């Protein structure tokens, strides 16, 4: 077991910079999830930790040992690949045993570990089969099993669940979580599915364009995104953004744009002071924009915004309505709420849950 530290890690493929200076400190036993849009360098980062990709600049430490120039076979890590990469000519048992055989582990110990791992993963009935004769989910579990029997310092996983159907994915997610609790080994897990990221990670790393945008606990990332990228990326449906300006008026602060003006909560005044008369971006999640009646009932606000309903998405548990003033945004109403497309609606904003970003840097103010 061990922690993983990346210090100013860069990676170029030829002239294109893919990873641009990553600093990351992962403690022993953490379950870290790397998320980000496609092509942001998650896989590349993971492969550098595994040693499958050379580092252009910077250093990587595993268990306090500098492994930057250590070949993958000596790093004592296990990796689960997106397409499983099971050895096609070996049975499930042989697949799991391969790494142990290379390490010259005794037969007795090997049997013990394979039995243990296949018990955890429910693979015992399939030990004699070849990968070809397994379903996608079973192959997935073999790939996990191959990693588990190793008892490595770090598990690396690259979108291991992306090939599974929705139901199996949820189930495997649960199993992974259990596995982590049992083994207490460091996991580094790549995905672009933010639900996976939120549910699995003890901490998540949000990446974009080769840079870490935020590294924090899942709830922290959701509630306090450090910049507009994280705010827009984490959370589904995505956060609404409104451009505008903060103005001081008597003893209160106002967010103002051409569509509406909102008096901001007093508790946060110290923050607003810094950006008076500056351009800002107000971020509010759809679930914090509700119909005015509900907003008043729940004591969110007493201010109204009027907008036109463009269309609606009925998801059963809740209803999202796409509304417009001059720009479009998304609001959430209760499933029973009655409305007509094209009608004007009065909305209330839960301003205690607001996010505010500086327009120039896109970084969070609160």
């Amino acid at each position, binding site marked *: 077991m061990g922690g993983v530290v990346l210090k100013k890690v860069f990676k170029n493929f030829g002239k294109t910079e893919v990873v641009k200076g990553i600093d990351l400190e992962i403690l022993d036993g953490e379950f870290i999830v790397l998320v980000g849009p496609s092509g942001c360098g998650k896989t590349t980062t993971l492969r550098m930790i595994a040693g*499958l990709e050379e580092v252009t600049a910077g250093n990587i430490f595993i268990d306090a040992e500098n492994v930057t120039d250590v*070949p993958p*076979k000596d790093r004592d*890590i296990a990796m689960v690949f*997106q397409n499983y990469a099971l050895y*096609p000519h070996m049975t499930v048992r042989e697949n799991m045993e*391969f790494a142990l055989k290379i390490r010259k582990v005794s037969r007795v110990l090997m049997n013990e570990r394979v039995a243990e791992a296949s018990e955890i993963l429910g693979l015992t009935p399939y030990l004699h089969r070849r990968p070809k004769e397994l379903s996608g989910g079973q192959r997935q579990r073999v790939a996990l099993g191959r990693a588990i029997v*190793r008892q490595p310092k770090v598990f690396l996983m690259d979108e291991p669940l992306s090939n599974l159907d929705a139901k199996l994915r949820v189930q495997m997610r649960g199993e992974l979580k259990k596995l982590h609790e049992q083994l207490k080994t460091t996991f580094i897990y790549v995905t672009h599915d933010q639900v996976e990221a939120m549910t699995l990670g003890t901490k998540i790393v949000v990446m974009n364009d080769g840079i870490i945008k935020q590294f924090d606990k899942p709830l922290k990332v959701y509630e306090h995104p450090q910049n507009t990228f994280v705010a827009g990326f984490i959370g589904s449906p995505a956060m609404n953004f409104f451009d505008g300006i903060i103005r001081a008026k008597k003893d209160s602060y106002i967010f103002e744009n051409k569509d509406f003006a909102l008096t901001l909560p007093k508790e946060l005044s110290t923050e607003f002071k810094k950006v008076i008369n500056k351009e800002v971006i107000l971020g509010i999640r759809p679930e914090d924009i509700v119909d005015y009646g509900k907003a008043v009932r729940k004591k969110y606000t007493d201010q109204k915004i009027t907008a036109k309903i463009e269309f609606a998405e009925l998801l059963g548990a809740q209803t999202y309505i796409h509304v417009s003033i001059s720009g479009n945004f998304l609001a959430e109403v209760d499933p029973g709420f009655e409305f007509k497309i094209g009608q004007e609606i009065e909305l209330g904003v839960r301003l205690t849950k607001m996010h505010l970003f500086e327009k120039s840097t896109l970084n969070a103010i609160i």
Partner: protein
Amino acid sequence: MDMTASNKKKEKELKKIQQREEAIKRIKAQEKLPFWTLMKYKFLTLYFAKKLLWIIFRLVLLIGISYVILFPYVSKISGSFMSPQDFVDTSVKLISKYPTLDTYKAIINDNQYYKALFNTTVLSGLCAVSQMLTCAIIGYGFSKFKFRFKGILFVLVILTMIIPHDTLQLSLFMKFRFFDIWGIVMGVQKLFGASATGIGNLLNSYWPLAILSLTGLAFKNGLFIYIMRQYFNGVPDELEEAAYVDGAGVLKTFVRIILPMSVPMLVTVFMFSFSWQWSDTFYTNLFFTDTKTFLLLPNIVSIPSSLDTQFAAKMIPYEEAIRNTCGLLILAPIVLIYLFAQRTLIEGVERSGITG
């Protein structure tokens, strides 16, 4: 447009067939109509005529092709069991009236078939194994590693495929008649005042073929390297990476993961190489100038002495039959091996996308 039109046509036909079948069913169920009406419904239809015509056409085609391809073999096999009387008797065409195994016995005993078979098997086997491994290693290198001049080197490999090997006859002969490695040995010999002969004459030994095979320069090895490279290109890199992460180095990965999973491909290369070496006369004639190393092709195709005295020389058809029997005996082991390896072979050929 075309597609939908043809689809509609097909649908129509299908409907017709269904209707007819339903009619037959109904008729059968009622069992009122007489037998002949039933038959009429069944056989006196355009549909049935079409089907019948197609069956006949297919049969004729198959028989025709089989005749062209198989007849020479059938006639040779039947000829090999004939005795001299059969060739005098004009009523004998394909089936012998006086069957005998004498021809086989004579060839096997007089021409030392088993000795030749053993030697050729050893030679072909050694060549095939070493070519298979060498070409796999070279192909793997070309497929998975980056190194300088890779492109140019691969073009050179392709060139060995293109250059007709007959043009190399003399230079190959001279190379192995006066063999040396870039004159190094000769230089050392000169240095110590010995007679400068280099490594010397390698003809009439297995060495020339072994050296060519181990360096991937033997007959068609360019093709084998190409086949293997294509195959390895199709092997996902993740597989090797998984092995690296599992703690295996490059060599272990190659030996324990890549080679075992390439068995169909390796068998294919082995079979090609084996059978080409088996039926090769170019290299064997070139490198085995005396008959001491007794190999199948150059040596057993001759009229056995015990048959020679009787008729053979005077009766052309008989002589031909004897020679054909020699040919059959040369072919037989290869055919047997192909039969055994057929399944893996087909798989391999399919994967390589290359035939013959």
